[in-house]
């Protein structure tokens, strides 16, 4: 997001937060409009409209399939549905008349947009009434979300999908091969949807209205960069009366200013001296390489945590306390505590839906499996998937593998030392020294891992690593 966009969204958040009634519907309307407003230019012109539309359609269908039929109320549903459809139509009309809301959006033909709205509404109505096969549909829905996720995260598949799309009769205009494909916010949208589907399957999802559900999925402060909240916590905040006290204003303002400073001053300055494909090929000294690597490590932290601060600050203005995503991760004495403090909402998601179920299954169903092997399997699977969440490339997979092996090594070390050197057996100064040593080691382990994350190929990362190691 640009500074101007953040400023506009903050003004909108302040305005909505001041509403005495109709706050939810206003939030729904603005979040829906922002979905279209922020969508960047696409290689196929009309995708700028269809992708946000697809997010909305998928979210509505997910709500129908995850909400308890007894808890659905038509009187609560129709105003939210009317707002969503109304905004989709207004954006479409705006696109036809010149696209001032977002010049990147080229509206499809009115007949096509109307057809898509009718099909979505028809499908939602059908699923609303057709209760028996819903468990099967939920499995299908999970598969569809995962498939869409894989499609947008795999660069090669995207190219094939664009070619396929071009051949469809729905498409207007030519393909701009120079423009990258981007389904804005879908990485986060998909994981929010999967959380609700999975919890519904487990019978744990609380009743939420259509409006609450859609706002949760596309909440504009957290739409592009998280955090990934949990729907029951989020809906609780939405239902609470909003009365901002001086402390809340101060809190929100502080987070916003801090976030802007981190993102647009610190991170953007560090970006100039951070490792990149070009820099790696021109650096001749290991010392400079270490400096550029450390700059990247801090840049990625300040960039991402800055965005999180902005989202949390904006959320406060709307009465929503979004979860924290970072807790001084580079000051942690080991890699396990680092991962308890880095991108916390994503790691918690993976613990809840990948690591914990997998570990529980292995411990319950295969008690004869050696503990070390169970730890290795669960850590590697979880961390490689976290890597692939960022993009389906070898670099991200290897980055996940690097951290999985680090967590495994730490687990084994902790197991080895537990019986031999119990906590509290060393003097306070020795404990402090070990903590500082652990922190330095952990930071450098994480920093070296960023080579795989920040450079476009593992070959470049290897080249950089060889130079770094040569200095030691």
């Amino acid at each position, binding site marked *: 997001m640009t500074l101007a966009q953040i400023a506009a969204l903050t003004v909108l958040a302040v305005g909505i937060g001041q509403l005495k009634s109709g706050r939810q519907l206003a939030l729904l309307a603005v979040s829906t409009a922002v979905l279209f407003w922020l969508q960047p230019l696409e290689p196929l012109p009309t995708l700028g409209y269809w992708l946000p539309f697809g997010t909305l359609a998928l979210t509505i269908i997910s709500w129908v399939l995850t909400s308890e039929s007894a808890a659905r109320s038509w009187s609560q549903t129709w105003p939210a549905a009317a707002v969503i459809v109304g905004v989709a139509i207004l954006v479409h009309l705006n696109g036809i008349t010149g696209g001032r809301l977002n010049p990147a959006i080229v509206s499809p033909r009115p007949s096509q947009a109307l057809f898509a709205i009718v099909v979505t509404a028809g499908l939602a109505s059908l699923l609303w009434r057709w209760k028996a096969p819903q468990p099967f549909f939920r499995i299908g829905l999970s598969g569809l979300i995962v498939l869409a996720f894989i499609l947008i995260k795999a660069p090669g598949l995207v190219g094939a999908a664009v070619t396929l799309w071009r051949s469809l009769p729905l498409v207007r205009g030519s393909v701009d091969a120079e423009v990258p494909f981007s389904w804005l916010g879908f990485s986060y949208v998909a994981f929010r949807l999967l959380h609700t589907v999975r919890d519904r399957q487990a019978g*744990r999802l609380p009743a939420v209205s259509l409006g609450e559900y859609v706002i949760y999925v596309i909440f504009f402060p957290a739409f592009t960069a998280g955090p990934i909240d949990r729907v029951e916590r989020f809906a609780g905040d939405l239902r609470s009366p909003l009365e901002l006290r001086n402390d809340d204003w101060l809190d929100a303002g502080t987070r916003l200013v801090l976030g802007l400073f981190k993102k647009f001053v610190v991170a953007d300055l560090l970006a100039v001296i951070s490792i990149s494909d070009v820099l790696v090929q021109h650096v001749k000294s290991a010392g400079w390489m270490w400096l550029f690597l450390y700059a990247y490590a801090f840049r990625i932290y300040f960039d991402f945590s800055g965005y999180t601060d902005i989202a949390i600050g904006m959320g406060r203005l709307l009465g929503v306390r979004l979860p924290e995503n970072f807790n001084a991760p580079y000051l942690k004495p080991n890699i*396990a505590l680092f991962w308890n403090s880095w991108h916390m909402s994503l790691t918690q998601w993976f*613990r809840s839906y990948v690591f*914990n179920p997998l*570990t529980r299954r292995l*411990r319950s169903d295969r008690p004869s499996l050696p503990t070390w092997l*169970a730890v290795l399997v669960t850590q590697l699977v979880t961390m490689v998937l976290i890597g692939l969440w960022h993009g389906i490339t070898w670099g991200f997979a290897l980055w996940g593998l690097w951290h999985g092996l680090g967590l495994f090594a730490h687990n084994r070390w*902790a197991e080895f030392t537990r019986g031999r050197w119990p906590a509290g057996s060393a003097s306070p100064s020795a404990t402090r020294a070990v903590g500082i040593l652990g922190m330095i080691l952990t930071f450098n382990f994480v920093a070296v891992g960023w080579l795989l994350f920040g450079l476009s190929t593992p070959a470049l990362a290897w080249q950089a690593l060889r130079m770094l190691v040569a200095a030691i």
Partner: protein
Amino acid sequence: MHDELISQLESHMAARILKQPGRRIAADEPIISSGLIGSFDLIDVALYVEEAFGVRIADTELNSATFDTLGQLADLIQSRQSEC
């Protein structure tokens, strides 16, 4: 009852999870956020609670936001038992 529960959890955790049978764990000592027990150990704690007290802690609840001390874990177990 509550203290007994905490004591039972403490002795299991010290002996089986931490491998330090004599270790004391205070009822209000953070066990997850402090890194005392890792995410893998947490599953063993959940399986023990399920087996010993007949209380299921869901995968989504295995985090420091749900319980971070033995006292909070004992509260959770008791509240689940009273629901049954």
